[in-house]
């Protein structure tokens, strides 16, 4: 297992993918945090000037949204990494598997270690340190971009609030779990382009839509909490969706279990399909 792990760690460390993704994650999150923090502050100012109460969803939340105050703004901005940026660690995880098929290195890999379950397991573990770097880039980017913007507008950053600190820190765990989900997904769908396209489509379009739709009906509202994106946000403990009144979340530990469950389920499917079939 140690040898397989060393091989898998080197596979990631000897290519540029991981730090390019960390860079993208950092820049993306700084930009989103600045834009969102700026928009919220301006909306708050407008509401104050007009004397009408405002909520964070701008009416979308149907009266369920939190009032637009300093705490709501801070939690919404600081959780952007887990609400939007989780696609990047998911892609990192998927690439760890799909690259092998794209460049056909799966052949020398399985020649060196024919125990395919071990190879897949080593990939799951090996992705963690790199996912951690990507996660930190995203979380730091979100906090720096968000806090700087709030500070410039003279709003409280609330970074000293232990609850907010907890929310920020737990995002790292959520993002690392997303990388594991990515590994599982890549092992099921090994076509690299298809895997990235489906991941993007699901996380950026299908799931947000599903969450809004499921939340509209009492019967399905509970189900929306078990979607992977919602589970990731549950680990952090808050998110833009929650502040907007568009979603409810599981407990922190439940969210972690659900997201880990997705990762395990996908890896098992990948082991029973891709990694059992003939290679090549």
């Amino acid at each position, binding site marked *: 297992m140690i040898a397989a792990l*060393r*091989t898998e760690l080197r596979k990631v460390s*000897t290519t540029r*993918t991981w730090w390019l993704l960390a860079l993208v994650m950092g820049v993306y999150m700084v930009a989103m945090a600045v834009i969102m923090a700026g928009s919220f502050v301006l909306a708050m100012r407008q509401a104050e000037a007009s004397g009408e109460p405002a909520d964070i969803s701008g009416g979308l939340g149907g009266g369920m949204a939190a009032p637009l105050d300093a705490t709501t703004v801070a939690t919404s901005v600081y959780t952007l990494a887990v609400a939007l940026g989780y696609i990047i660690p998911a892609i990192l995880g998927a690439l760890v598997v799909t*690259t092998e098929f794209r460049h056909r*290195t799966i052949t020398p*890999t399985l020649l*060196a270690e024919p125990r395919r379950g071990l190879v897949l397991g080593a990939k799951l573990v090996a992705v963690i340190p790199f996912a951690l770097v990507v996660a930190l880039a995203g979380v730091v980017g979100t906090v720096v971009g968000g806090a700087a913007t709030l500070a410039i507008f003279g709003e409280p950053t609330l970074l000293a609030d232990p609850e907010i600190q907890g929310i920020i820190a737990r995002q790292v765990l959520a993002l690392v779990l997303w990388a594991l989900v990515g590994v599982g997904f890549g092992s099921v769908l090994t076509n690299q382009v298809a895997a990235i396209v489906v991941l993007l489509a699901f996380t950026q379009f299908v799931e947000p839509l599903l969450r809004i739709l499921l939340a509209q009906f009492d019967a399905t509202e509970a189900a929306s909490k078990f979607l992977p994106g919602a589970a990731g946000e549950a680990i952090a403990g808050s998110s833009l969706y929650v502040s907007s009144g568009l979603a409810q979340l599981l407990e922190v530990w439940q969210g972690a279990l659900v997201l880990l469950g997705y990762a395990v389920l996908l890896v098992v499917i990948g082991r029973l399909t891709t990694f059992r079939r*003939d290679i*090549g």
Partner: protein
Amino acid sequence: MPAPGPFDPADGVVQLTGLTKHFGPVRAVDDLTCTVQPGRVTGFLGPNGAGKTTTLRLLLGLATPNAGTATIGGRPYRARRQPARHVGAALEAASFHPGRTARDHLRVYAPQVGVPESRADEVLAQVGLSDAADRRAGGFSLGMRQRLALATTLLGDPQVLLLDEPANGLDPEGIAWLRHFLRWLAEQGRTVLVSSHVLSEVEQTVDDVIIIARGRLVHASSLTQLEALARPAVRVVSPDVEGLAALVQEQGWAPATRFDGPGSATVYDRRAAEVGAAAFGRGLQLHELATADTSLEALFLQLTADPQPGAAPPTGGSPGMTPPSATAPAGGQR
């Protein structure tokens, strides 16, 4: 003569027995039985699509056969721990991440193969890629990729080498180098199997040949025995069907003649002048008299051609055909 190496020959025997693989209705490998001996370079030959790569994949545990077994040194590939220390195999010349340097490519696999990182530079030197060690594999020429693929197989200093089309993309100088390199490896007692779709490419390298077509074994022997099959022949066509048959009978050529159709025959072990003179002497009108291509390549094409009724090459009774059952069973030692 191969020098006695540090290898136990029994561990180097590659044995395929009744190996069969279907892809839907296609029998990619069909009841293939043959043996590859250590200390020799064996050419694994057949046209494109004959089933060579599939056979290697089955042998290496990358694919599962529908029937039959494939063992190396008496054991299936996947039954070994750290198999790359015993068997080095290269199936595709392009199995590299283009963004990884040659040295990094080898360093990646070193732990799994079970060798120290220093092996990376050793094998790069062996294949003459030391100067390109820090270049990304994505910028490599096909010849350099072949060398890097070969370096990868050598990482574990394996007793058995299985190389799929290793000469593909090499320039003449590279082919000459590869030839000497493979010879050198075989002389150390290693088993070296090289696949190719062109016999001429490996003709000067191999000691033994295994030829397959449409997934089936069509020939297995030493190269010398195969060469003995490449007999001179004359193709003769006459409008006088009976006259031609009578000529063959009179001259005593019948045992070495194949009738390709009415009035058309191939006469083996005779020269065109000889056949022409005999026909003239009998007053037999000829429409065609031609020396058949007797090169090894022509024989290879003949052996691997699609079967045509009545046009089977007269290889019966030749010393070349090795009955599958006559091959020695692989040693079950270890």
